[in-house]
């Protein structure tokens, strides 16, 4: 009995160490990305300290900036989760951008026709409609992967272009508000999510996002379906051997992934823009890739990574405005984080030195 306990404790310790080890790698990867970024800033003739302090100040400097950081975090939670869900079944869904456009568009249109419903039915309903639209967009690459093996990275990228074009077409043809800007009319008051801080556009959507994190976490940890999807991602032939229909699981995971990416669009329409506008996204779908990679495809990891990239997105604007440093630095850091996190051996080598 004593030996059993001892073994148990050792096992727990190794587990904790393993957990810790991963965070150390991720942290080093972020640090390294900022380091490479600072070399670039310096070589371009800017002050590194000025750049990074403007970045930090813009993201966390005061309450308003903080609310803007959280506002930018919300869509990244959804798109990051979407990429993570795809990864769980071994698929790389970079179609988050297109799925988000579909979700945003569907939600914006649905609110027009369903505005007669009471708020407590209307809001969940239009969220689900947005999710389903994203889900339909995720289904196509999932189905093609399962049926034909067509690489999902290429097909999801193509679906992004098609999604952005098709929403733009439908908007211009049927739903465009009078005026020079290609946008729908404002959605009814009842479908708008209430603000947490006045004039901040930070809304209840943050709770919806956290709620979805919890659901997805439970889904993968506690449900049979979630477990099956992960088994397919870890070892497809073993899963098949165990009697899991891997094709079905891949299609399902792409649909769930698309659903969550669709919610990114829905919450932007309901919380931030209050309408659908063409080209509204500053690339939330693509930043979601960095979020998922950094968050190690774990729902709570995604939350922290989303806050980091939400802060960068927000701080980047201040940096460009006040320190006159191009905010594309943020994109560079994103790319570097993805590369460094993807290459733990590099980090291991660096840490050993």
């Amino acid at each position, binding site marked *: 009995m004593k030996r059993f306990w001892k073994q148990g404790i050792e096992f727990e310790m190794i587990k904790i160490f393993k957990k810790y080890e991963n965070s150390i790698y991720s942290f080093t990867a972020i640090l390294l990305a900022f380091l490479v970024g600072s070399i670039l800033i310096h070589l371009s003739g800017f002050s590194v300290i000025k750049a990074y302090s403007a970045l930090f100040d813009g993201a966390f400097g005061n309450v308003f900036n903080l609310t803007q950081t959280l506002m930018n975090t919300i869509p990244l939670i959804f798109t990051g989760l979407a990429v993570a869900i795809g990864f769980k079944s071994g698929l790389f869904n970079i179609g988050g951008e297109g799925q988000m456009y579909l979700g945003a568009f569907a939600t914006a249109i649905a609110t027009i026709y369903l505005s007669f419903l009471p708020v407590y039915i209307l809001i969940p309903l239009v969220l689900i409609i947005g999710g389903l639209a994203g889900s339909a967009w995720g289904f196509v690459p999932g189905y093609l992967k399962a049926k034909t093996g067509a690489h999902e990275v290429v097909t999801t990228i193509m679906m992004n*272009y098609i999604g952005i074009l098709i929403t733009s077409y439908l908007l211009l043809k049927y739903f465009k508000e009078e005026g020079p800007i290609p946008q729908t009319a404002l959605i009814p008051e009842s479908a708008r999510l209430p603000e947490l801080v006045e004039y901040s556009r930070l809304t209840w959507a943050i709770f919806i996002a956290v709620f979805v994190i919890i659901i997805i976490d439970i889904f993968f940890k506690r449900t049979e379906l979630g477990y099956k999807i992960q088994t397919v991602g870890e070892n497809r032939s073993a899963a098949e051997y165990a009697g899991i229909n891997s094709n079905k699981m891949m299609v399902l995971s792409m649909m769930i992934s698309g659903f969550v990416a669709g919610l990114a669009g829905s919450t932007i329409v309901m919380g931030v823009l209050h309408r659908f506008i063409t080209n509204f996204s500053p690339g939330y779908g693509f930043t979601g890739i960095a979020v998922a990679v950094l968050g190690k495809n774990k729902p709570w990891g995604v939350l922290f990574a989303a806050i980091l990239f939400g802060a960068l997105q927000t701080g980047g604007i201040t940096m460009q405005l006040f320190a006159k440093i191009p905010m594309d630095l943020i994109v*560079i850091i994103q790319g570097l984080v993805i590369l460094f996190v993807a290459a733990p051996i*590099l980090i291991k080598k660096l840490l050993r030195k």
Partner: protein
Amino acid sequence: MQEILEVIFNINTFSAAIRISVPLVFAAIGGVFSERAGIINLGLEGMLLTGAFAGVLGSYLTSNPYIGILFAIMAGAFIGFIFALFTIKFEANHVVAGVGLNILMLGITTWLMQILWGSRGTSVNVTGLGEITIPILSSIPILGKLFGSHNILVYVMFIIVIFSWIILFKTPFGLRLRVVGENQEAADTLGIKLRKIQYTSLIFSGVLCGLGGAYLSLGQLNWFSMNMSAGRGYMALAANIFGGWNPLGAFGASYLFAYTDALQMRMQALNLNVPNEIIQMIPYILTILVLAGAMIRSRPPAGLGKHYKTNR
């Protein structure tokens, strides 16, 4: 209807398609070399973009577009090497590293464009590549129209298509390369210099993308603009698959994509009753259909995407 048919079979559409196909062909053959060496290359997109930027930079600094091409080749080779370092030495997941590289290069090129030329949209105008007219060929009726007068990179492309097919299927190096892509362990056991071959093919892949990128910026236009590659790298990867991991096939597939793109542009000009957004979708939908169709009948190199530790 007759108008559409006229556009479909118009010699100008075929000739425009050659021009549009150039960056796709270069990148697709880059994809062939890297995937034949066992490395999934989604970085083609970032490599194309880098080439486009470096080409304009070279021409901007020296006012000589041919130096621009040289810059693009060197930048492509460098990025190819970096990608090889990450995917081979650091054992990064190929797909994740490729997408990371693309995002990084999008950031870096947009950043440098603002530092150098102060604008986030487009660079300044630089000297582009001039057309070269081939004397006798250009006077032959149809062939002249198709092949008679292009800039140098178009002719380089045709040479590369044939040259790379010969390398891949008719030389000992090509044979070794294909063995590496099928089974790294077996290649290693056979005494093939595995790493050297993989690095060489990825650097070559980068060089080709550099050339394709230079064509985008110096050949088609005289400037660089943000995210100029606009998904062509991903299309090129699809063309590589549709072409059966073969340079000739990759050329055919790229030409098909380019042809639909040319058609799409000409149809927009016709003022048909079909909305432009729908017409613009055609190449993307075709890419998806072609990729799905191609995957049913062809088989990728068996060792694609795998990591292998060698003791050498």
